[in-house]
């Protein structure tokens, strides 16, 4: 039998502390969301007396979150389609074609991933209000696409590069056009990379606050992040409702994460950006 040394014990202990630290705020939020207003006020720390979903129903129907949910879904899916249409072709070109300015373009895109939205939102706001793109899904989706194309392109390119040229050559010899070669040969091989990219794009679209805060000011068009951020004004004494709404706002991401956390970890923490 292996002897457990003190240092091993200390290491386990530190990791357990990290684990408790990670879980504690989640516990507080979840337990608060099941308590009644009075229960939460008298005991914000303890377990709820019973599993009462009333706060969730109230948070969903009475705070405007239901409408915001639809808006966020439209924004996320629209951005996904946009990224598919714009970032896939350019990352394919950067991975498998030779052309002038290719390295410059890659450097520019890397640079773009570090450009703060604050640097362009003010003029963009005035441009978009002239064009009637303020308070429109389409306008916001266009901004999302523009902001995340550089990251998506660099990430997907790192997958497309791995597709062997021989596969492509074979397809071309068989008489396939470039588009056909792409859809039939490259896309299936690089599918995990595309999935990862889309998951991250969905997450970023769902989570963004600054842009809808700036470009959407019609109540019926706001996404969940803005809706949740505005809750405090109206429900400031009902933290049980705010917590229930916060959990509901995160639910789609939690579900995506449970089923595909490997993609998230690989896409965000891998070397995609550096390659």
């Amino acid at each position, binding site marked *: 039998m292996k002897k457990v040394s003190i240092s091993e014990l200390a*290491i*386990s202990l*530190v*990791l357990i502390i*990290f*684990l408790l630290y*990670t879980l504690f*705020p*989640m516990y*507080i*939020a979840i337990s*608060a969301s099941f308590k009644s207003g009075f229960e939460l006020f008298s005991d*914000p*720390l303890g377990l709820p007396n019973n599993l009462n979903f009333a706060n969730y129903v109230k948070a969903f129907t009475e705070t405007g979150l239901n409408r915001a949910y639809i808006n966020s879904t439209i924004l996320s899916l629209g951005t996904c389609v946009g990224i598919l249409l*714009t970032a896939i*072709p*350019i990352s*394919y*070109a950067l991975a*498998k074609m*030779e*052309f002038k300015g290719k390295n410059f373009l890659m450097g520019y895109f890397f640079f773009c991933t*570090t450009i*703060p939205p*604050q*640097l*362009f939102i003010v*003029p*963009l706001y005035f*441009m978009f209000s002239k064009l009637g793109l303020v308070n429109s899904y389409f306008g916001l989706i*266009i*901004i999302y*696409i523009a902001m995340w*194309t*550089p990251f998506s392109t660099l990430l997907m390119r790192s997958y497309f590069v791995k597709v062997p*040229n021989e596969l492509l*050559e074979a397809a*071309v010899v068989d008489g396939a056009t*470039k588009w056909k070669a792409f859809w039939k040969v490259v896309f299936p091989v690089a599918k995990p990379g595309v999935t990862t990219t889309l998951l991250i794009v969905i*997450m970023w679209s769902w989570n963004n*606050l*600054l842009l809808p*805060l700036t470009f959407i000011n019609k109540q019926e068009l706001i996404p969940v*992040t803005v809706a*949740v*951020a505005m*809750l*405090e004004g109206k429900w400031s004494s009902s*933290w049980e409702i*705010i*917590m229930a709404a*916060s959990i509901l*706002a*995160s639910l789609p*991401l939690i579900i995506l*994460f449970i089923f595909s956390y490997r993609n998230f*970890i690989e896409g*965000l*923490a891998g070397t995609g950006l*550096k390659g």
Partner: protein
Amino acid sequence: MKYKNKSKNIFSVGIFVFPALFINIFVILIPAIITFILAFFEWDGLNVPQFVGIKNFVTIFSETTFFNALLNNCIWLFIFLTLPVIMGLISAEFLRQTKWNFLLPVFFFPTILPIVVVGLIWKFIYHPIRGLGKYLNVVILGDPSIALYGIAFANIWAWWGFLCVVFHSAIQGISKELYEAATLDGANKWQEFRYITIPQIVPTLVFMEIMTIIWSFLVFDWVWVMTQGGPAGSTELLATLLYKKSFYSYKVGEASAIGVIISIFGFLGISLYYYLDKKGVEV
């Protein structure tokens, strides 16, 4: 190779590149350039912009709110260059030693949550009457001397797990033989960490620190959700100041000048990256 030769046709490359590039230029590049121009104009968003030279910069530099925000950004930068990086390093190294990899998704999970949500959860925890603040008898977000640290602490909760995963994946790339050889030589766990793990992941470490420099000057959501810059401007950051100037007090020129200053820090970060890259530090 044959395939590549066939794709010399500019038109076909253009079709692949054009849509993404067009949207990028229209939404990001042109407005960003206009920001640089507007920084030298006075504009309320309605009337014709007036050229005022460097007046906007002079105005900003004469305001204590600006220096206050800049100082807060620097404090923020210092906190994020150290604390979460240390937490990420320690946890990643300990995960290597224990092989408790099941903890990885748990540590990572908070980083995918909307900032709005995490901000509100911590705001509730801190709440001096309704949250846990009442047990500790502290007012965190309402106290100008510690509010910024309160926000940073909430941000760290949703950030260190990302660094843990990044460092963990870098550590996975280190050859196992290095550690085996060290064990044979009688190295203890600290020595393994100090003389193998750290030197081997320096490129990743440097890369994350540079990104931290860039990101630290962009922080907006955390402050906006938790304090909106208050109390008494104690949590104001450059990004929140810019937002207020452009959309609340309609001083677009001054806001643009702040935007230029924010991007200078980003540019410094990028330059540092390329400088180290050239010098042969493998970033």
